């Protein structure tokens, strides 16, 4: 994981105090009903409290001290669960707040509806009305100029400006935003450094990406994700079973007292305690905290999302579509070799190459200069000498000629794609030698890009340009494969080039000569085969594919259509981020699964703590099942049940440890840790609590 990009949670003063207050406020049954497991626990707490009050009058079913202690710890159980949720919310809010700072209500210069856009001209004053940013609606036009803060998300429809987006991205270098193309999207809260823009508002207030994210965290609009709902159904089912078990026990106990002619019917307090201990309170209490924490982890990596569903889907992804450039390879091709032809010496070729590329500011051009310098030991002075002698004229690359070069007096140097140069050579009356064709073909076959260089219409040689695969990316793909995720490289390159890079990078498959249509088709094919597809994109032409993908991450630098089609936005615009998003998704599900297993496995021990004591008066022989030799088994189990929630809050917020491994390994490890651990832990914990209770003189 690229830890350097991780935004650390800001230290929040009063986080715990606020969470503690929220925990109490969340006792309101109207809000707690959203969590049925904890709601039933609260109902149980209320019931035992009433029983306690009754016991205080001397008419209790059991000693008031016992009922009071049970009742208190049941309340703590609810409070601890609420606290976990409040804590997760608090941390998420703090994350969101720091994002929201730029989202404060600002003034906006709204353009009158009568205003008609004139390209390249700033609107006249009379059309501008200053309004609050919250008054803006979708499709309104606004005007911003240097020194302004862009009030809301939008799309540039006119003007060019440099924008400081460091508030969101943390990247201090300003970026250019202009109408049309891939750099037209602006984010609310970012600042204009120079020039001006006319922006079309893309969302009503409260509907922007950030607003979505903030509301996801804050709970008011937090909707449960599909997996969470499915899990909740299971937990609710278990809760219903345990309510039935506890209620039936009252009848069973009453009958047993009658049949055995001994003992007393089990008290309601004990039955409520039994129910709460059995109910999946551990996972039930931590479930929403786990979900919030998942989103929180996403924000920490500078990714914002509009739905929790997308995070879950990320865990399910089994096909990753990755853009070659920037994700798999370093942004640009680099020259790795010069091949002289037709009798040219390598020294001459290198010198010419350097000359031809001196003014070429493209990364390819620069890499040629670097190669000439490093491999062929051409010093700057060699060039400098000729530079001063005669005026040089640089010929920039154009899409018509598909060549670039330099003219220096009678010296015409050209470099460019092979077919363009072949034509250039032939127009100059020379023929393309077999040696040259051979060299070009060799490079193409090796997956490289040949760049032919010619001087005065005569071929000198070929540069071998090559994509450089990012360090460590191959290992990353091996990990992904172990996780069962297939990687597909998307590139505009031809098949041959694509295949070479694909092999070098170790991706499973590739899509060469990709067009927006072929990308969309590929995604649909995978989905029809039952797979979940994730992709990243930034251009407008990525939008259909992004909309089709199950997990679609748009670069923050992307166009507004791309951002709207996506369900996540990476503020760092880092295409590798997709891999981390998948890991966060998986970790989220694993944490739920692990704590569910732990919670259920705990119950076995609780039975051993409660049942023998609860029915000892009727069937004293059952005392032999009190294998832990507990004195206050019931109270100890209830206390353990409450404390385990607190103990697991860090795990819920942090997520279970995640490593790339196969499903089998992951399951085995988690069963051993949370299943077997869940069986054993409560035996130890309850015994310790029981010993402490005895030391404290209880019971």
């Amino acid at each position: 994981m690229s830890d350097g990009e991780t935004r650390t949670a800001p230290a929040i003063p009063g986080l715990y105090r606020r969470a503690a207050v929220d925990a109490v406020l969340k006792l309101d049954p109207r809000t707690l009903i959203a969590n049925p497991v904890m709601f039933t626990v609260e109902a149980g707490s209320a019931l035992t409290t009433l029983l306690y009050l009754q016991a205080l009058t001397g008419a209790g079913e059991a000693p008031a001290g016992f009922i009071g202690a049970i009742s208190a710890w049941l309340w703590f159980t609810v409070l601890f669960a609420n606290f976990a949720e409040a804590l997760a919310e608090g941390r998420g809010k703090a994350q969101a707040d720091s994002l929201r700072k730029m989202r404060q209500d600002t003034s906006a210069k709204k353009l009158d509806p009568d205003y008609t856009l004139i390209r390249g001209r700033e609107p006249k004053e009379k059309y501008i009305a200053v309004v609050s940013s919250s008054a803006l609606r979708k499709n309104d036009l606004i005007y911003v100029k240097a020194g302004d803060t862009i009030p809301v998300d939008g799309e540039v429809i006119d003007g060019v400006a440099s924008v400081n987006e460091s508030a969101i991205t943390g990247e201090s270098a300003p970026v250019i935003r202009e109408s049309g193309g891939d750099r037209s999207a602006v984010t609310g809260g970012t600042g204009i450094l120079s020039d001006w823009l006319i922006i079309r508002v893309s969302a009503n207030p409260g509907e922007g990406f950030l607003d979505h994210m903030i509301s996801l965290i804050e709970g008011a609009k937090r909707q449960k994700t599909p997996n969470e709902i499915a899990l909740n159904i299971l937990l609710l089912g278990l809760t219903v079973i345990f309510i039935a078990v506890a209620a039936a026990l009252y009848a069973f106990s009453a009958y047993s007292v009658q049949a055995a002619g001994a003992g007393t019917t089990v008290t309601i307090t004990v039955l409520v305690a039994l129910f709460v201990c059995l109910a999946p309170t551990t996972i039930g209490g931590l479930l929403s905290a786990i979900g919030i924490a998942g989103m929180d982890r996403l924000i920490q990596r500078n990714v914002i999302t509009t739905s929790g569903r997308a995070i879950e889907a990320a865990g399910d992804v089994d096909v990753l579509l990755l853009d070659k450039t920037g994700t798999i390879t370093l942004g640009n091709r680099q020259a790795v070799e010069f091949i002289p032809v037709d009798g040219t010496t390598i020294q001459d070729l290198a010198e010419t190459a350097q000359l031809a590329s001196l003014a070429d500011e493209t990364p390819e051009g620069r890499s040629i200069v670097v190669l000439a310098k490093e491999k062929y030991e051409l010093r700057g002075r060699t060039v400098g000498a000729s530079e001063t002698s005669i005026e040089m004229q640089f010929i920039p690359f154009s899409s018509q000629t598909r060549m670039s070069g330099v003219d220096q007096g009678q010296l015409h140097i050209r470099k460019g794609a092979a077919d363009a140069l072949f034509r250039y050579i032939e127009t100059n009356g020379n023929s393309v030698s077999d040696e040259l064709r051979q060299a070009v073909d060799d490079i193409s076959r090796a997956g490289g890009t040949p760049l032919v260089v010619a001087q005065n219409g005569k071929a000198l040689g070929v540069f071998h340009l090559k994509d450089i695969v990012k360090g460590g990316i191959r290992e990353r793909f091996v990990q992904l494969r172990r996780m069962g995720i297939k990687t597909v490289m998307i590139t505009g390159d031809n098949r041959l080039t694509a295949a070479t890079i694909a092999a070098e990078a170790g991706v499973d498959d590739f899509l060469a000569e990709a067009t927006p249509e072929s990308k969309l088709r590929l995604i649909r094919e995978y989905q029809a085969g039952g797979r979940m597809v994730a992709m990243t994109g930034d251009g407008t032409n990525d939008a259909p594919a992004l909309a089709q993908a199950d997990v679609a991450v748009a670069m923050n630098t992307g166009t507004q259509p791309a951002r709207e089609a996506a369900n996540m936005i990476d503020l760092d615009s880092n295409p590798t981020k997709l891999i981390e998003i998948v890991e966060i998704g998986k970790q989220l599900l694993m944490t739920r699964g692990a704590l569910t297993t732990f919670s259920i496995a705990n119950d076995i021990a609780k039975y051993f703590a409660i049942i023998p004591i609860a029915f000892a008066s009727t069937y004293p022989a059952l005392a032999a099942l009190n294998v832990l030799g507990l004195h206050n088994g019931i109270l100890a189990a209830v206390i353990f049940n409450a404390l385990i929630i607190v103990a697991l809050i860090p795990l819920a917020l942090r997520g279970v440890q995640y490593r790339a491994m196969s499903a089998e390994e992951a399951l085995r490890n988690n069963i051993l840790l949370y299943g077997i651990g869940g069986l054993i832990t409560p035996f130890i914990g309850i015994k310790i609590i029981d010993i402490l209770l005895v030391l404290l003189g209880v019971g």
Partner: protein
Amino acid sequence: MATEPVQSIIRKQAKPAVLIFFLLTLIVGILYPFIVTGIAQVLFPVQSNGDLLIHNGKIAGSSQVGQPFSSPQYFWGRPSATSPVPYNAGASSGSNLGPDNPALADAVKTRVGALHAADPKNTQEIPVDLVTASGSGLDPDISVAAAYYQVPRVARERNLSEPEVSALVNSQVQQRQFVIFGEPRVNVLSLNLALDDISAEKISVPQSAGSGADPTDPPASLFGMRIADWFQLLLFILLVMFIVVPLGAWMAKIYTGKPNFFSPFLERIEQKIFLIAGVDPGEEMDWKQFAVAVMVFSVPCIAVVFFLQLVQQVLPLNPAGLSAVPPDLALNTAVSFATNTNWQAYVPEVTMSYFTQMAGLAVQNFLSAAVGMSVLVALILAFTRKSGTTIGNFWVLLTRSVMILLPICLVISLLLVSQGTPQTFSGAVTVPLLDPVNDSAGTLVTTQTIPLGPVASQVAIKHLGTNGGGFYNANSAHPLENPTPFANFVETFAIIIIPAALCMTFGAMIGSRRKGAALLIAMSLIFLPLVGLAIWSEGAGNPALSPLGVDQAPSDLQSGGNMEGKEVRFGIVPTVLFAVVTTVTSCGAVDAMHDSFMPLAGGIMLFDMQLGEVVFGGVGSGLYGMLIFAIIAMFIAGLMVGRTPELYGKKIEQFEMKMATIVILIPILLILAFTSLAVLTPAGQAGVFNPGPHGFSEILYAFTSASQNNGSAFAGLSANSLFYNLATAFCMFVGRYATIVLTLALAGSLVTKKIVPAGEGTLRDYRLLFIVWLVFVIIVVGALSFLPALSLGPIAEYMGMIAGGMIHV
């Protein structure tokens, strides 16, 4: 797709429902028993008519049915709990006394006293079968040890020498059947007839070298179980393993319409049925249509059985002239048989006419099994189909299921007839008693009535279809319903093969045998330890009897163990195997009285059912229940590996979890709620027979059995009351049909899903890890739901025996 209103589906399916019901009734309710009877009467004329024993030219009794002996000059048989007279073959029954019921210890003490009084000089420990009541009350046999024990008394009374009588006993010993099955035993009637012949000097004392076994030798054993028992157990397991693969593959072929040796016959019948019923076999149903068809079909099933009982007195094949069944009992019985439960609140011999049994109950044995299998196949189809909507045609699957059961039943029924199970339409025969006995009113009874009927044809499907409803009250403990150790083996085998083989059918249909085998292994991993534990519990005998001078130790001459409610011919291990098989499979047939099992074994049988009847389970219903548990297990496991869980390539989402959770919830809630209701009301408490925690177990067992559609009972409970008839009928109905409808809804959702191709990130649903996890989930859900209830029943009883110093652990 526009959803069709339910009313219009009902209208559409009503006609095929009624027509198919009557056509299948004709085939399995009339043709089938008549054909079996015809063949049986020709091939096995003696066995099919009660296996009457002709002695010196006169009928002396039935070879299969025991007679009471109380005169000291005769060998005595097993104590019998029938009333009003022991060995009343018209009303077979066990004592149903619980192991720690003081009445049991008292009864044993009385019997020990009687034996001692008859032979004061004999100070040997008394073999256990001689002082414990048999399961049927008609056990014809005693152990060899029990025969030897009586030799001194009989020799003295008859003025014969002990070696002479011993030699006679040795000549009468029936060794293990085919060397392997059951226990060496002595038929008491046959022995006593021979004894009379010797006294009358009709025959001479046979020359015999003795049994060869030294009773003081400990039997050859391994891990505390006799080698002979190991053989039976392992043979059973091996044969089941051997049969499931071809049987499962064959069923898959039939369901998918692939050609097989049976298809020429099957296709001809099928086409006729569909033609008459107006069913287009190519027309598939979505889940709603399928569910409605199942429910509509249940109407004639329940109604016809109900009305048959009400009017049986005017119908043919009622040789005993039985009168109409009371409505509450008739309703209970109708629901019971239509739901594949076969809970029996009645004594069949004195309640149901041959016609009711044959054309009503036995038909339901076929049809209810076939319904279960059809629902399972629909669910399997849902797993195998990609983005579909339909899950098969219920009428086609139903008919094919019946056609699968029918030929196998034919074989089983003839096997049973060959062993001595009756197959006739004649009425009961009366035979003389060799040693007349007084009934409870003091009247001398000199004859015994041997009940007959079309038994074998019904018993075959009772087992094969995991139904369990006995032709006789004592069910498979009855010596006519289950005459020999080999018959017992066949019956046990017949219970388990279809549920087990359906796993392989599933594997074949889903295209991965490993996936089918995985489920079978999961079931076995639960089943085998439970068998082992139950055998250990029963084999150790009842500690309450030890201080009374009773010998319960296994030897070469007796199986020993807890013999109350069990039959000598089977012995402990096959009986316990039967008991566990019948409870894990939702069959509910019994070859011993479950009420008299030791608390641990009784608790295991309760727990078997409480696991949800998914360990093999009922035909069809077991595997669909298992698949539902697999969904739950996979859901949690899937979360733990970090992706939305998928089972067999189908994603498990909200709807699946909702259906699966409710399916598991329903029987649990039924059991807990109705047991509570019963223990709190006088009507419920009134049925209890045994005191203390065992009485609680009886009620818990009743509602567990009904809700899980098992049908076996802790039969001491007086269940033929208005309260129990209606309450158990409700549990049976909801436990069956709610589960079916929800399962079909689940299938309807699964079938629409894509099939996710398996990759490295997919959890292999056939690997050992998942199998173990599935087992863990099943056991934990069962244990968490029922441990408290069990702790007030069998666990309290067991712990009480430990605390009372009776059991040392």
